[in-house]
């Protein structure tokens, strides 16, 4: 039944797991509220799923955020414009690659908070849909 398990820290971020018939190395580091775990060939990002760990990040319905840090190189829509699902709203360039921000559904553009040339960070709301 319940195996006797021990975990030992052998070097920064490197641990050894031992149970009755098994010994193996795994890797684990913590970065704020995120824990990075490497276990049997796979990397996992974990967060504690509790009240205290909820991120400061507010989710606004219809808000479309920058997918990654980069520069806005094209804005294709303006407030009041009707858009269809999949339509390109604006384009962010990062690491020399263009990434289009597309409408997740049909709707009307409520606001556009970016202009070509703006540097944006992930989480910044660029377009709001109604």
């Amino acid at each position, binding site marked *: 039944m319940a195996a006797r*398990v021990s975990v030992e820290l052998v070097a920064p971020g490197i641990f050894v797991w031992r149970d009755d018939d098994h010994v193996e190395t795994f890797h*684990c580091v913590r970065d704020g509220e995120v824990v990075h775990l490497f276990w049997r060939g796979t990397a996992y990002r974990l967060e504690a*799923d509790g009240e205290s760990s909820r991120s400061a990040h507010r989710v606004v319905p219809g808000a479309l955020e920058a997918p990654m840090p980069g520069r806005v190189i094209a804005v294709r829509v303006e407030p009041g414009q009707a858009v269809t699902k999949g339509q390109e709203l604006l384009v962010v*360039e990062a690491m020399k*690659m263009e990434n289009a921000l597309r409408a997740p559904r049909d709707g009307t553009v409520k606001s556009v908070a970016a202009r070509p040339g703006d540097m944006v960070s992930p989480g910044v709301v660029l377009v709001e849909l109604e």
Partner: protein
Amino acid sequence: MFAKVLIANRGEIAVRVARTCRVMGIPTVAVYSEADRGALHPREADEAVLVGPAEAARSYLDIDAVLAAAKRTGADAVHPGYGFLSQNADFAEAVLRAGLTFIGPPPDVHRAMGDKQAARRRMAASGVPVVPGYEGDDQSDGALLAAAREVGWPVILKPSRGGGGKGMRVVRSAEDFPSALAASRREARGAFGDDRMVLERYLEKPRHVEVQVLGDTHGHLVHLFERECSIQRRHQKIVEETPSPALTPERRAALCAAGLAAARAAAYVNAGTVEFLLAPDGSFYFLEVNTRLQVEHAVTEAITGLDLVRLQIEIAAGKALPFGPDEVSAQGHALECRLYAEDPDHNDRPAPGRVLHYAAPEGPGIRFDSGVVAGSEVTVHYDPMLAKLVTWGRDRGEAVARMRAALRRTVVLGVTTNLARLQAIVDHPAFRAGALHTGFIEEHLAAPAPPVGPPPEALAAAHAALRLSRGAGSPEAAASDPWETLGPWRLA
């Protein structure tokens, strides 16, 4: 031999070049941008010079700044690596004008091969097979659309002065053509400062194969066999190997002969690569010549036992090739996987961040060339490749088995990587059967794998690990710590 080599690059390749120079007893100078103050490559060289701000155009691509660094440090040769200025004829020329040696082909070779239209014409005239396409001077939207119609859908748009997949787009209908053309031009302008386009018939399910060539300044030209680089995303290679599992000895000989013919037509000097598309029927077509060391050169090194950077340096120093055309033999099979900080589940978007923890795989037949270490910052400014994992085996099966095992011991924590995708590729039955083509990922691995949580014992291990790590932490911090409460976890 050179007194000092300046390495005009960053990351993995800068580190790799510095290592060969060290073996050869040649001091090195690294250049770095403000974003790379803490990077690995300046530490791997004997000296390091700050050449500008994070933005590549004002640092790694700033010819004057790079040459000023060479002058200040007394370097008498420049190795450009790959990417950045490596295929820039003006840079090669400026290096020569400054009285230094450029470790690579002469400027006119860069110029002739960098202009893909001229290169195709020259190859076609030399009897090297080329894909049907358009390379005309009329670059109007109308002319390009008409050409696409004539070549036949699907077509692929490519920047005339490009490389690395940037600005390339496959277009399947006249309807999609205008927006694809506009986007390709924009990317080409941004990346290469030139938005002229070449257009070609897009072959369905082709393989990407390429021939490594080496030419010295005494008129000797040899090939070092082929590489197959069919596994690509966004038209960029991520898994490469040699020999190609698709070629019979006869087709291999024909391909390598065509590669040599192309290099001869280009009057090639130093290390270069002639790229071809290989159709399912065994026919192959010239794509382009890469006038630089390739990212994937290490697989060729693995089967030949040669150090291509060393050969590049010796050729640049005026030495004759140390072997003749039939004196290089290949042994076994080699694979390369490129480890990127990118998110395969979200359109391969780059995933910047800090590498918190890093461990390289070890074992027989494993080589790990990395540009980062634990603590390195992966920024938005540059290509997000972290490292190249190369395995060698007596045959393809052994090389694949070693790669599969090595990928399970490649630990990168802190940034999202394509590790799981690389594992999925080499684990795939089609990959293990050698049934490759450039649409392999779209065909076999398009659907993102559903997020799978860690098994219960892994969570238990993580909890125990955190408790151990926290030993040194302050009690106040621990009191308000969400990790103290062993609540449910979720994948972040």
